[in-house]
C-alpha cells in the first residue's frame, strides 16, 4: 500500500514539474504587453489585479506566524542566508538602506546590529589614537556618542502589506530598535521615495510576489544613489539533481502540511512553493537586473541554489 501511495505521490509530482516547465515558458512572455495583463498566482494563471489581491490575502493570513513558519520551513536556515546578505552588503555607519518587502523587519534589524558593531570597531580604533586627549576633546566625545551611534544610518522598511508591517513594528518595539528605523506602506512598483536617495536597496524573499518585477527593478534603480547597490535574496533554482529531487519532495509534500498545522492555511503555503518554482532562474533573473540598468551584476548561490543573492550596482 505504501509503495502504491508513494508512486502516486511521485506521479503527481512529475505532472506538477512538467507543468512547471510549461509555466516557465509562459512567464517569459508575460509583461511584454501591458494590455494583455495575464500573470500567475502559484501555477494558476490570473490577471494582474487578481494576483495583487490574492498575494495580499496570503500575507494577511500568514502575517502573525510568518516568522515562526519561516523557521520551521527552512529549519532556521533563512537566518543564515540573511546573515550572508549582510556580509555581502557590508554597510558602514552612515549607510542609508531601503528594505523593500521587509515587513517583519528581519533585514533592517540585522542591518542596524551590523552598523552598531561597525561603529564600535571604529570607536576602538579611534581610542587607540586617543591616549592623550585634551579636556575639549573629551567633552566633545561625550556629545558625539550621546547623539548618534548610527553615524546617520537609517533603514526604511517599505512593504505593501500593512499587517506584516504592523507586526514588524511591534517586534521592533519589543526588541528595542527605536532609532534609525522608518516604516512606510508602499508598492515596490511605485516607490514613494525621491530619486537617488538610498545607498542600498534590499529585497528579501519578496520580489517573486510582485506583480511586475521589471517595474520593481526600474524603481529600485531610480531610488538608489549613483554608486548604490541592489541586493536581492530570493529562492532560486537548485543546480544539484539529487538535492533538487529531495527539495521538490520537501516543498510540495511537507511545506503545505506545515502550513496547515502551524498557520492553519494550506493554500497560502501551496502558493509560496509554487511561486518559488515559477521565479526565473539565476541567469535569467541576472539578465532582468541588467536590463533595468544595473552594472556588475552577479549572484551567489546559497545551499546549492535553493536561494541566491543577486547583486548589482547603479553606476
Amino acid at each position: 500500500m505504501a509503495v502504491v501511495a508513494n508512486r502516486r505521490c511521485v506521479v503527481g509530482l512529475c505532472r506538477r514539474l512538467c507543468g512547471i516547465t510549461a509555466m516557465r515558458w509562459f512567464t517569459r512572455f508575460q509583461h511584454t504587453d501591458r494590455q494583455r495583463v495575464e500573470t500567475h498566482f502559484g501555477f494558476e494563471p490570473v490577471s494582474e489585479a487578481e494576483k495583487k489581491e490574492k498575494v495580499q490575502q496570503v500575507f494577511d493570513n500568514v502575517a502573525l506566524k510568518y516568522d515562526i513558519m519561516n523557521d520551521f520551513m527552512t529549519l532556521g536556515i533563512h537566518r543564515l542566508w540573511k546573515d550572508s546578505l549582510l556580509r555581502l552588503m557590508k554597510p558602514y555607519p552612515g549607510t542609508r538602506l531601503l528594505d523593500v518587502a521587509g515587513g517583519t523587519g528581519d533585514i533592517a534589524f540585522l542591518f542596524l546590529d551590523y552598523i552598531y558593531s561597525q561603529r564600535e570597531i571604529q570607536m576602538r580604533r579611534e581610542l587607540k589614537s586617543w591616549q592623550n586627549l585634551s579636556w575639549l576633546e573629551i567633552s566633545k566625545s561625550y556629545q558625539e556618542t550621546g547623539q548618534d551611534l548610527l553615524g546617520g544610518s537609517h533603514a526604511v522598511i517599505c512593504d505593501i502589506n500593512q499587517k506584516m508591517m504592523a507586526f514588524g513594528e511591534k517586534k521592533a518595539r519589543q526588541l528595542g530598535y527605536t532609532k534609525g528605523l522608518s516604516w512606510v506602506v508602499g508598492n515596490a512598483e511605485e516607490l514613494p521615495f525621491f530619486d537617488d536617495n538610498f545607498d542600498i536597496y534590499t529585497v528579501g524573499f519578496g520580489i517573486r510576489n510582485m506583480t511586475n518585477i521589471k517595474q520593481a527593478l526600474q524603481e529600485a534603480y531610480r531610488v538608489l544613489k549613483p554608486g548604490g547597490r541592489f541586493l536581492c535574496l530570493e529562492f532560486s533554482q537548485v543546480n544539484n539533481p539529487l538535492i533538487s529531487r529531495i527539495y521538490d519532495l520537501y516543498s510540495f509534500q511537507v511545506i503545505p502540511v506545515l502550513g496547515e498545522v502551524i498557520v492553519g492555511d494550506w493554500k497560502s503555503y501551496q502558493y509560496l512553493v509554487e511561486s518559488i518554482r515559477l521565479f526565473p532562474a539565476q541567469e535569467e533573473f541576472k539578465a532582468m537586473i541588467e536590463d533595468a540598468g544595473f552594472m556588475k551584476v552577479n549572484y551567489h548561490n546559497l545551499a546549492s541554489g535553493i536561494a541566491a543573492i543577486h547583486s548589482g550596482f547603479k553606476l
Partner: protein
Amino acid sequence: MLGLAACRTGRRASAVTRRLLHPAPHRAAPNPPDPTSNKKCFNPELLSFLVCPLSHKPLRYEESTNELINEELGIAYPIIDGMPNMIPQDARMIQKEKKQEEPEQSQH
C-alpha cells in the same frame, strides 16, 4: 559632567574608554520623549525622503486629518498608527477634476 569629574590624568582615558565602548545600550530606549516610540505619532522627518509615488513630488503633512497631501494632484495619503500608507489605490482624492489618469505619469 560627572564622568568628566572622574577623569583625571591616568583615569581619564579609561573613563572615556568605558563611555565609548559601552555606550548607552541602544535596545533600552533611554530617551522617553523619542517621537518614534509613540506608535500613533507621525515622525515628520519622514518627509525628507517621502514623495508622492505618482508625481515624485514632495508632500505636506496635514495634522488635522493626519494625512500626507499632494496639493498638485489633490491626493491625500492616510497615516495609520504613525505609518504612512503610500499606495495610490488606498489614497483619498481631494479634488476630483482633471488629472484622473495620473498612473500614466509614473511610467516615464
